[in-house]
């Protein structure tokens, strides 16, 4: 069947275009950071199936500042530790829903060097 959840099947009707709520304040930013794995998991979380895991605690205070610095660093932003406009813009960019498991892994990490294509050209279409 075409999947639906509402008794009256109203969810089958074409939806008006929904827009994601912009990340515009501290609370939304905290939710973003915990949702995508930037916050530490609470103690005793152990190994759980991903869809059963409780969300990590939202970072606050000094922890928030440190978390923001890490996020800013990998996104090539000034690592101020403050929730500024550029950081909010980065959080609002289209992204994959899978958490970022290793937020400190950057371009200069131990990953093998990229071998450049000749003259730095883009790949030719296959």
């Amino acid at each position, binding site marked *: 069947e075409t999947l639906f959840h509402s008794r009256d099947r109203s969810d089958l009707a074409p939806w008006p275009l929904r827009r994601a709520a912009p990340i515009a304040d501290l609370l939304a930013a905290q939710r973003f950071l915990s949702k995508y794995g930037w916050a530490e998991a609470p103690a005793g979380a152990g190994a759980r199936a991903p869809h059963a895991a409780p969300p990590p605690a939202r970072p606050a205070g000094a922890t928030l500042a440190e978390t923001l610095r890490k996020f800013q660093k990998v996104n090539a932003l000034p690592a101020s530790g403050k929730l500024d406009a550029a950081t909010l813009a980065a959080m609002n960019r289209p992204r994959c*829903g899978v958490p970022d*498991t290793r937020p400190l892994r950057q371009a200069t990490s131990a990953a093998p060097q990229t071998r450049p294509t000749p003259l730095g050209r883009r790949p030719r279409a*296959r």
Partner: protein
Amino acid sequence: PKRFLQTLRPGPDPQPKGSPQGGGTWAFAKKTLTWRLVVEGYSSQLPVDEQRYIFHLAFRMWSEVMPLDFREDLAGPAAAVDIKLGFGRGRHLGCPRVFDGSGQEFAHAWRLGDIHFDDDEHFTPPTSDRGISLLKVAVHEIGHVLGLPHTYRTGSVMQPNYLPQGPAFELDWSDRKAVQKLYGSCEGAFDTAFDWVRREDNHRGAGALRFSTYFFRNSWYWLYENRNNRTRYGDPIRIVAGWKGIPAQNIDAVVHVWTWRRDERYFFKGNQYWRYDSDKDQAHTEDEQGKSYPKLISDGFPGIPSPLDTAFYDRRKQLIYFFKGSLVFAFDVHRNRVLGSYPKKMVDVFPAAEPQSHPVGHLDAAYYSYAHRSVFFFKGRRYWKVAREEDRRRRPGLPADGVLPPRPISGTWFDVCDVHTSALSV
């Protein structure tokens, strides 16, 4: 419960427990994975056939760089399908994670194998320069299913944020090595390997000689780009699509007889051979005397047995070396006959540089590489290089035409990977 979970195995880099699903602790242990775009998860934005084609291409792009391949499964029970894909809005497809509408999160993947796309996003086909490329997102999410986490490395397809890019997006060197760290490199014997020399005229009419490197296996082939350390994007291709008039599969040998006066290219299979016209890009149908191709090897190359294992042309000695079993035949192209002292044992003509380190016989391919300026003997997953003068200057004890210890083919010619036969036409 998904039965294929029993096929999962720990990857080589264990992560701390409790890490979210983006980590790479597990890898599939099967050679072929099945996938399906679920009927209840069709996008409302693109024709279904176009959605399926894009996913075919996305899976193929991964199989071109790793030893796994992927097959669309439309008929089997859903529980047996390894990777299910679908589009949804808000609360979707029984998933506990709700999509947020247009903007921000556009897709997610579960390490169990399901991929969901937010149908509130404007997904577009690869040819479009607007919206979000469905191909790029699909390749990214398949990367998660395979066990790759996010990375912020420039150029990686596994960056968490979507970056608009031109239509020619491909998996770069580091993404390839990351997935090969989980699944290993592509290995396997080849039927033949050869460099094809062409003359190209520039705008001033001056000619330049260029060569292209080809690997053949079964009914398909790859062009190998030596300067880029990979195969051409989109390869392998069916032999019939690129080489007209020669057998469609299992070529034994390709030889380019190249002297001051001769420029002849031959394909060998079974007891027959074909001559190829490089200018017209097709096999000759007949020779100058009007005799048709294919011809018998015994007629065109008297004294040479068939079927062959392989052959190569030595330009310096102007001999074709034909290999069969443990024997090698040196064929003089000017006298059109086998040299008097042949056949000989391969180990005598090409002696081992180190004890117990020789293919002995039954080669898959003998390949002269212009890139490496050396002859290579391929057998199984390994190659033996024939020492050239430069090697002997560095190691004076090396015998003439000595065979150096073996190395893996995949360590010198990278990412020559099969794809599923159903993907050959994608």
